[in-house]
């Protein structure tokens, strides 16, 4: 990060190799859309370059990175576009299903419908609850780390995750 702050573009390349998968994966888990995740990933690395001079070495790079990713995800205004693209997206997902002879066609469709149901339930969650759930369940961040990323107390994280899970259970009819 120090090299990046000094304007060394190779440092950005190294950071990209190390971090791009993680950034893209986190963005995708939150936005549940490949194009949006790609846009956010790009903007995260631009932000990394622009804010490199403000990075303090004593801060954990992981926490700092996740904070940038989180802020970009929360700011990303894609809900309207997703509603417009909804039909096209479903067609694309159905096209990606395994061929019916690998599994029974009924099972394939059932699994696809179930995924879509869970996906829709996730998208209904308030943004902060959703990002807390992504950071905990998929990225395996501790409560203390999530508190640092979201700039809130540990108790708030506990509360966010409880509400997220409870809302998800309600939406899924569990």
């Amino acid at each position, binding site marked *: 990060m120090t090299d990046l702050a000094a304007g060394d573009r190779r440092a*950005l390349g190294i950071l*990209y190799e190390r971090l*791009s*998968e993680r950034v*893209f*994966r986190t963005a*995708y*888990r939150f936005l*549940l859309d*490949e194009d949006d*995740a*790609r846009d956010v*990933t*790009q903007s995260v*690395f*631009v932000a990394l*370059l622009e804010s490199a001079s403000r990075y303090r070495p004593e801060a954990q790079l992981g926490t700092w990175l996740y904070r940038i990713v989180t802020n970009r995800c929360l700011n990303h205004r894609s809900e309207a576009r997703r509603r417009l693209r909804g039909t096209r997206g479903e067609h694309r*997902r159905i096209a990606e299903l395994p061929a019916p002879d690998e599994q029974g066609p009924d099972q394939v469709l059932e*699994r696809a419908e*179930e*995924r879509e149901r*869970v*996906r829709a*339930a*996730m998208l209904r969650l308030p943004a902060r609850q959703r990002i807390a*759930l992504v950071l*905990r*369940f*998929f990225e395996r961040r*501790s*409560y203390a780390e999530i508190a640092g990323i979201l700039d809130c107390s540990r108790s708030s994280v*506990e*509360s966010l*995750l*409880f509400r997220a*899970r*409870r809302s*998800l*259970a309600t939406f*899924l009819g*569990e």
Partner: protein
Amino acid sequence: MRCFQARKRISAQLDGELDPRRQASLEGHLQRCPRCKAVAESLRKSEQALARLEPPPPLPPDLRDRLIEDLDRARRARRDARRRAVLLRAACVAACILAGFAAGVLLPRPGGFSGDASGRPGALPEAAYVAEAFDATAFGFAEAWD
């Protein structure tokens, strides 16, 4: 432990974030309270549902190239903005100099000449000082010649 405390901690239990004392306390409450036990079960099922979400696709291979294009475009935009700012400043300075010169030449002298023959300027604009000094010199030269 009260129900509202227990329910909040159920989520922390799923995440392995409860210390042993609270863990034991929660387990004791769940054994006694069927409603909280049902809540725990529903939260567990919703957690399992997350595992059924579609995994992320692979990182797009063209993302790195697009990022480099983005950065280059941003750098060019910053450089152009800096150049525009320099040109604007230079134009402002030039305009001020021109305005000052024009004011000195075109504006009438306020209340006439207030200096004396030696050329002391008084309250006159700069261009007038030069003209007056020339007049005074010419006058002195004419006197000396006479």
